[in-house]
């Protein structure tokens, strides 16, 4: 194991972790300066309504948007989700867990020129589609993959 590398990376990602907490709702928006907190969409209990809430009701499927999630979650409480957008001019990436009580999980906005690539750890209540959306030039694109959350045990 490379301890030095770890220490450096921990320091480097601290602000990223904070950003993640804000976006996933672990910190209430009132606690931070969240100018663009889309309260209605994040508090929506329905995936379709949440999509509508962020203006992505008409998102088109895209192969240029890549989502990486496990087929079966090792721990439903911390499921790693990686999203990369290869769509030019991507300005934001949204992650949604369709069957979570509050499906809209995270929104990341990118300053002009930032690489549209995000990594998050999300809690999944049960087996669900995990959907990623990218916004580029005012249009939404989407991709989704199922993550299974299962009882353990009984393996061969």
């Amino acid at each position, binding site marked *: *194991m*490379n301890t030095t*590398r*770890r220490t450096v*990376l921990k320091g480097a990602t601290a602000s990223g972790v904070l950003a993640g907490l804000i976006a996933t709702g672990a910190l209430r928006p009132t606690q931070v300066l969240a100018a663009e907190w889309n309260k209605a969409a994040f508090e929506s209990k329905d995936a379709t309504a949440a999509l509508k809430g962020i203006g992505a009701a008409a998102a088109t499927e895209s192969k240029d948007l890549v989502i990486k999630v*496990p*087929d*079966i*979650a*090792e*721990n439903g409480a911390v499921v*790693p989700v990686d999203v990369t957008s290869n769509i030019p001019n991507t300005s934001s990436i949204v992650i949604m867990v369709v069957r979570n009580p509050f499906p809209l999980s995270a929104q990341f906005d990118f300053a002009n020129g930032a690489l549209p690539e995000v990594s998050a750890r999300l809690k999944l209540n049960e*087996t669900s589609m995990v959907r990623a959306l990218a916004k580029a030039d005012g249009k939404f694109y989407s991709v989704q993959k*199922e993550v*299974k959350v*299962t*009882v*353990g*045990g*009984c*393996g*061969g």
Partner: protein
Amino acid sequence: MSSMNRREFLQMLAAASVAGAALDASPLLAAGNADAFYDVPKFGNVHVMHFTDCHAQLLPIWFREPNVNLGIGGALGKAPHLVGEHLLKAFDIKPGTRAAHAFTYLDFAQAARTYGQVGGFAHLATLVKRLRGQRPGALLLDGGDTWQGSATALWSKGQDMVDACKLLGVDMMSAHWEFTLGDKRVQEIVAKDLKGRIEFLAQNIKTTDFGDPVFAPYAMREMNGVQVAVIGQAFPYTPIANPRYMMADWTFGIQDENMQKMVDEVRAKGAKVVVVLSHNGMDVDLKMASRVTGIDAILGGHTHDGVPRPVIVKNNGGQTLVTNAGSNGKFLALLDFDVRGGKVQEFRYKLLPVFSKLLPADAGMATYIEKVRAPHKAKLEEKLAVSEGLLYRRGNFNGSWDQLILDAIMEVQGADIGFSPGFRWGTTILPGQAITFEHLMDQTAITYPYATITEMTGQQIKTILEDVGDNLFNPDPYYQQGGDMVRVGGLQYTCDPNAAMGSRITEMRLEGKVLEAGKKYRVAGWAPVAEGAQGEPVWDVVARYLRDRKTITPRRLNQPKLIGVKGNPGIA
């Protein structure tokens, strides 16, 4: 698949494997001529031997293959989902022969008495030496599930098997149940015992924090001037199927993108033969072979399928052989490659059953095993009861050994319903044979053996059955875990394996009464994966039941009523 496709498929297999002609072609074989049975002419210039899932069985044992191993969706009617006569037909094996006995459950008890026990490391060692004698430098690969499954492996924390594998001359291994000894113990063995002797390979295990590799992903060897690479694939769902706290800092998964990267890397380094030593399970291997290119063969395990010939999977890079080599030390696979002009031209594959009567025990290994067992001999050989019926475990829904465990834990603990995990390991007892403490440990020797009593609502019970059912019958192999259905005592139910997740299980009844979603039931179980679980080791609970009874009558199997499996060649 249509009959036309199936015929073509079989023809392709036959053409690809000339040496795979029926094992019992010679009349000498029925009489037990070992030289003829194990005479596999040397072919080509790269040689790989493979065994897997021996589950720490050092001595010869009985092992009955399943009569229920359903293929669902795209797996319907294809290897490994063929049982009994369907399997014999698909692989041109003559009924009533030694080979038919090795690969099927047919007439099990009688055939077992005729042909004798299978496996045992001393007999396996003799076969390994024989094949290595003809093929100097041949690699011996161990697919894993080696350090778990017996009393002595449990009590020595895997040490008896580690030393046995070194003595056997294993070159490389991958793993699954090994991890239930705990991450620290695995790392200790890899660092101290295996160093310089056995490569422990897993491309799909990374640290949970930064994704650093934990083990070497692959190893390369030169054989007769040819570079050979072996890439390891540990069981992808270890932290789900087994207690996650035992390997909390590691993440697994199938990781076929990284597999492709590793294949490309070893090819770039000059590998002309690329073999994956896999613990995925055969259905997952078949899918992986269709997605990852550049692999010559995936030598598989986990699902304990004794598949006589490889399945050839076509992909964008050419073709990949997928094999599965059974369990419990019953088989040794031999794969010969003819490598010329920088690539594999042809291959020969044979899955050789290890019949202990045909292979004299290797003296060195026999002495070693004797020494390992000596301190525990009295305890191991304690006769708990005599079984009147055949006791076996394998099968998608239940086995008579599991039924016995269910009967015991329900009665001893006073429960209406019993759950026993769908493990695929565990040896077989013939009618009239004594059940020793060692036999009981063959079914139960795990590091989290606690017998439990849980109050569960009808809804919770349904959720568990649905979840485990989906782990077995999801049409996409990447969502399967490779175990069998949880064995259920007391409760009757109907199962439709082809239905969607959440609607496979219906008609749940206890003593004729429909299970109520909100009502609580007392459920006996064992092998809890949650951290902090406690209870008496299940072997003590069952041993008490057996000692009290002394004679175990043939078990009446509690099996679900099945829907939609008529004509499925995965059920007899």
